[in-house]
């Protein structure tokens, strides 16, 4: 178990290394000069040379990448030995060209909003998706099943930027039941937090619960045909026990897998949701960074979300071993 975890962590680190190298390569592949980008509009050749030196862009690519990686683990110092010495502590991902803030601080700043969206929405979509899927499976072929699966099919075909804008138009602009979406700290303003997050949660949950509903329904129906469910009936168990214990238990494993990966992906930035609702999360940070060619921020957000996805993958694999006793981790 421990050695398995260690191996997964090592391979995860390797993947991260590859991801970081590729993203780092953008600096050089893009037809844009980072020095010029970070310099602003009123810029002289002199200044560019200076900036190039400050950002250590005058070094070779491997040296720069090496220093970048080193910065993540032990921090780095720009302009060492000069009066303008700049100490970037680990994990250092550089400074934003736009705001000059450390990328790490930006990520830390934006994570709570994204995490709020991800966790809130995931609870909603699990509740709605699982319960409607279970009801559909148990009432297969009835109007309840047809209705909920019809809604699910429709919902799964819609897009966040459509549903989100429609909901916002109705509930914020027309009915004024909710304030404009945004982010307030749940610790200090819990009520505002819920009110502002409500639409992003509902929008995301609307689309994702559709997928979970179909997944749950299909899984349960498949398991209902298993021999061990017939055995459970032959034992004299009630339908409720059979469905909620034996059937659901058999169907839940793939759902957990998909859920782990979805949540991991979302934590790296609910890009479209944040963009549509203008919520200052990681997704918004990365789209803004792309729009402004803010290379250090792009690199930072990509690596950060890669970390979430890799960690989610490892957790899902570990969870699999808990859920399925046949999977023995060696």
């Amino acid at each position, binding site marked *: 178990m421990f050695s398995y975890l260690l191996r997964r962590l090592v391979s995860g680190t390797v993947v991260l290394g590859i991801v970081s190298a590729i993203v780092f390569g953008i600096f050089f592949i893009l037809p844009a000069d980072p020095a010029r980008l970070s310099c602003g509009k009123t810029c002289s050749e002199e200044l560019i040379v200076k900036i190039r030196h400050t950002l250590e862009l005058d070094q070779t690519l491997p040296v720069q990448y090496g220093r970048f990686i080193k910065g993540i683990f032990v921090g780095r110092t720009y302009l060492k030995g000069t009066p303008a010495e700049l100490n970037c502590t680990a994990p250092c991902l550089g400074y934003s060209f736009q705001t000059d803030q450390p990328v790490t601080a930006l990520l830390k700043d934006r994570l709570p909003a994204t995490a709020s969206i991800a966790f809130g929405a995931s609870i909603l979509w699990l509740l709605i998706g699982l319960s409607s899927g279970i009801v559909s499976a148990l009432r297969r072929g009835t109007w309840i099943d047809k209705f909920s699966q019809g809604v699910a099919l429709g919902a799964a075909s819609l897009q966040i930027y459509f549903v989100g804008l429609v909901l916002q138009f109705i509930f914020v602009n027309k009915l004024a039941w909710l304030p404009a979406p945004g982010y307030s700290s749940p610790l200090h303003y819990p009520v505002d937090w819920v009110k502002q997050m409500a639409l992003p949660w509902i929008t995301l949950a609307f689309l994702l619960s559709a997928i979970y509903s179909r997944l749950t329904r299909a899984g349960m129906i498949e398991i209902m045909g298993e021999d061990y469910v017939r055995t459970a009936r*032959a034992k*004299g168990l009630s339908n409720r026990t059979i469905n909620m214990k034996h059937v659901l*238990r058999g169907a839940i494993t793939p759902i957990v897998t998909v859920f782990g990966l979805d949540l991991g992906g979302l934590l790296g930035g609910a890009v479209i949701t944040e963009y549509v609702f203008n919520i200052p999360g990681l997704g918004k940070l990365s789209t803004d960074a792309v729009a402004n060619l803010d290379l250090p921020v792009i690199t930072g957000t990509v690596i950060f979300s890669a970390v979430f996805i890799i960690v989610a993958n490892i957790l899902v694999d570990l969870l699999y071993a808990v859920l399925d006793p046949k999977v023995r981790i060696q």
Partner: protein
Amino acid sequence: MSAFLEVKDLCVSFPTEDGVVRAVDNLSFTLEKGKTLGIVGESGSGKSVTSLAILGLHKGSSAHVTGEILIDGQDINAMAENEVQSLRGNLMSMIFQDALAALHPYYTVGNQIEEAYLVHNKVSKAVAKKRAIEMLDRVGIPDPHKRVDDYPHQFSGGMRQRAMIAMALSCNPSLLIADEPTTALDVTVQAQIIDLLRDLQKEFNTAIILITHDLGVVSETADDILLMYAGKEIEFGTVREILQKPHHPYAWGLLSSIPRLTGNPDKALAAIPGTPPSLISVPSGCAFHPRCSYVSRVGQACSASIPELAPTSAGAHHLVRCHLDSTIRENIFNSEVAPNL
């Protein structure tokens, strides 16, 4: 005094898109406590459908079940689902062919036996676990207090079937239905399981219905044999009657197709020509007539009308459904079939 289990005119049919499948057609038989009835037939002959009907497991499905299934005088078929539910696993229980598929992969063997016990007995979990260990011990699982926490996949095939038996017998049922309990097992393990079932039957005086296509297995365990073909009972009698002097041409075919250790290895094994019929369009008359080698000795009747289930010359207990005249039948068996067995 009526029999412990009495099945009267049981019909089970399933509506499908291609038509109605008549899986069991007018089946009647009886079984006493402590006795074993072997139901023998090919795949699709209605054996398993019959056993599921006895447990009331068709309730809530699209199957249409008519007739009476009386256990201790109570008609299972007339009962509501929740009434039958309280009898399942308690009065009657069932063990299935493929124990790996029939046990839940995500629960321990102990948990599954406890569950079967707890649902019919108001006891604590600890008592149920003790019962599970006791049952595992009784069916011959070594180290039962350790193995009780194993998952089904950690058991060998034979042990899984033992665990199934432990589960089925945990509430001391009066009727046990064993649906091909040994088909998925090695021959040596088969013998052990058969012995185990026989011992347990003596101990608990259980009535057993053994569903199988293996005449070897029934010959060792059953008291009576019910031979089924295309959902119909075609011959019924004691093991001795059916194995030594069967009356139905289908039974002759089954017996002739058993390979014998003393037989000539160069001789091709006898087989019944053709395949079992589709239950949607069962052949007219006797369902077996398209495959029967003796149709010419009867004439039109075979394809025109369904023969009655009638007593043979052996007595009222031995029944057969065949148009052949009983003396002709005996002559054919003695002169043409028996010498080749």
